[in-house]
């Protein structure tokens, strides 16, 4: 039966599992401050990142992995495996997918599948885990890709932020621009879906916005999995997890912190609830 390598990028968050235990290759995006180029999760830990975010007067920028890196990874994978499935952050949020697709077409277009998750963070992580689970059985690569495409619409991810300024300055604000400029203090409630950041509503208080995110994240139907994501606000995330565990004891739920690349666009204080709806 075909052996299949799974590849993803560093924006993927794995709730409750170490990526190293999955036997996958994670290609790091980079974060740069001025001329310092740091690979996400390799050269930079998230606690270092938030420390620097608070003290460095310059805002960091991010970059997708260079095409040469993907070519190296893919060449290495095709030399040891029959096929490669690469799953990546939404193509509309980062050029990572198109760079990977570019590399795949150069190295071995018939053996490398590049999937656009249209999501990121735990949404991407769940797809990768699903691919890993299927790849360990007797499943063809094309079948796995079809299974991933079937899973994508079942993923939900809602989040709230301390402020929209990071999204705006990073150029990822999209339709959420409608929520910018309120003269009252409000917290945005947003959804990440189909590769876009979608404005849902605004709430006056932080506590209220976190409650809404938990409601929306769990309100779409029966769920297979749940996760709470956060950026440098673990206590609030744990409180949400505890409350959701009380309400939905039968659904496995984990807390995970987003990586530096995503935090660059959300700023500290992101709290999100994501789920995979039952099929």
């Amino acid at each position: 039966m075909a052996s299949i390598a799974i590849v993803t990028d560093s924006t993927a968050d794995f709730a409750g599992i170490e990526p190293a235990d999955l036997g996958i290759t994670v290609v790091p995006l980079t974060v740069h401050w001025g001329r310092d180029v740091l690979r996400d999760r390799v050269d930079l830990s998230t606690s270092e990142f938030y420390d620097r975010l608070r003290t460095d007067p310059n805002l960091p920028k991010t970059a997708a992995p260079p095409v040469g890196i993907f070519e190296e990874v893919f060449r290495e994978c095709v030399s040891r495996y029959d096929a490669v499935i690469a799953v990546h952050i939404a193509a509309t949020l980062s050029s990572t997918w198109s760079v990977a697709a570019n590399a795949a077409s150069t190295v071995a277009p018939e053996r490398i599948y590049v999937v656009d998750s249209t999501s990121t963070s735990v949404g991407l992580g769940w797809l990768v885990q699903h691919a890993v689970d299927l790849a360990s059985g007797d499943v063809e690569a094309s079948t796995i890709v079809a299974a991933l495409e079937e899973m994508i619409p079942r993923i939900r991810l809602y989040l709230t932020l301390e402020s929209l300024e990071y999204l705006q300055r990073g150029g990822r604000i999209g339709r959420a621009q409608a929520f910018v400029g309120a003269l009252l203090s409000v917290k945005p409630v947003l959804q990440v879906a189909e590769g876009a950041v979608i404005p849902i509503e605004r709430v006056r208080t932080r506590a209220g916005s976190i409650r809404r995110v938990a409601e929306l994240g769990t309100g779409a139907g029966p769920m297979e999995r749940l996760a709470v994501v956060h950026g440098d606000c673990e206590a609030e995330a744990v409180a949400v997890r505890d409350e959701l565990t009380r309400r939905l004891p039968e659904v496995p739920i984990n807390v995970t912190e987003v990586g530096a690349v995503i935090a660059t666009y959300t700023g500290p204080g992101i709290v999100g609830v994501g789920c995979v709806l039952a099929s």
Partner: protein
Amino acid sequence: MPANTEKVTSIDGSDLLAALEAAAQSVDHHAGAINALNVFPVPDGDTGTNMALTLRSASDGARSAGGSSLADVSAAMARGALMGARGNSGVILAQLLRGVARALDGKPSADARTLAAAFRVGADAAYTAVAKPVEGTILTVARAAAEAAEAAAAEGQDVAAMLARSHSAARDAVAATPEQLPLLKRAGVVDSGGEGYRVFLEGLLRHFTGEAPSPQPIEIDVHADLSSLHDENDTYGYCTEVLFQGASIDVERVRNALDAVGTSLLVVGDATLLKVHIHTLQPGRVLDVAVEHGEIVQVKVDNIQLQRQRFAADTPPEPPRMELEPGTGMVAVACGAGFRDIFQSLGATVVDAPGTMNPSIEQIVEAIKRTRREHVVVLSNDPNVVLASEAAARLIDDRTVAVVPTRNMPQGIAAALALNPEAELDDNILSLTRAAAACHAIALTHAVRDATVDEVAIGSGQALAFLDGRAVAAGDGFSDLISRAIGSLPSGSYEIATIYVGSKGVEMEAATFADCLSQHLSVTVEIATGGQPHYEYIISVE
């Protein structure tokens, strides 16, 4: 460097390395100006920086090759570019350089003809690298440059002359990009990737001739219509754009200084040339910041309100049917300049109701028409305005309109916050109604005559408190009334109280109410300007 008048009939690896280094430096030098051409935020917004970094990697790679074989150096150049490619423009450039290297495989040196052919292979490689090639970008410029190079080489021109023709064609192609991409034309700029490639070619050319046709990058047109980038709900203030230059502008300090001055801030460029765009009520402050950090090159200031009013005034009575965006917009009736600003800032079209809070049906109809969405919610914010709102809604036939009969402006604000701009009308009516119902309002005023209202006896001149439209207490001081009004609130948990100061209210007095509110209700208290004429203070409790 003096002009090199000797013909360059062929080049080898060390010539390529030297030229590449010069070109990489040139792109690096102009990176800021190339960045400033980016008019829309894209995943790899900094085209100039990305191309500069990619070329730096390319020349580092080329340097490591050693020896003077053109094939070796160009292969190392391509490998370096690929390993360091940044962003879409960097990746395309790296693929182009790989194409060039492939064409030079096995050749220790190359003449103009061979080089031109290599550039052609490079330009083709760039096209195949992109899943959906778009004309009006670096692809078009690279192809035009390669074609001109081939034509020059076929005429027997040497390398320098060939590069000159190539660069000239690139310049023309860059100038034509706005005709190929409407977004560039609207923004009044040329394509940044294309311009970056032209600068690269100019760098190569300059190395061989010792002089460049022109050291300046193409002028950036600041009279650009960037409104396509912003939501139409950003409707107040001045749209202010300033282009300024300096020796070493502290970009982050500029950004931080402007963050507080307005909204929709865009800052593009670098320490030598910076373009800022912002919507602000204080355009002078933007100019102050610019002058503090450098030398102003161009300024544009537009009054957003006037532009919109002019547009509304110019619109004929029966406007031709314009595009309606899907989703739901809102109209809010507001009394008081502060409330008007708040509703506008939340994205609503405001019907300005003067003191009597009774706008005409026509005013409401006009506001609904100005809200360019397929569905519109009308927040009447006063029981007396509900009938007029419903009558106005019935007069609109080109989309669905519904009235959410909010009783007061705080309820209207709660509803406005709950609006999901992308959802359909029915879903929104439900959430807005729920949000409004959860918001209570205490209104404080002075009675103008003796009366009994809602079984509360009131003396002329006495302070008077209403809760959700019902009189609940009369007395001598507002603070005492607030406590009594709080006592009448339905039981439940509240999180935030906002004190809206009216035109007859005083912010310092409002601050004294904060303690009372937070003590009785354990809420966060905020103070805002309402500007309402009749109630000194309106306090929302949610």
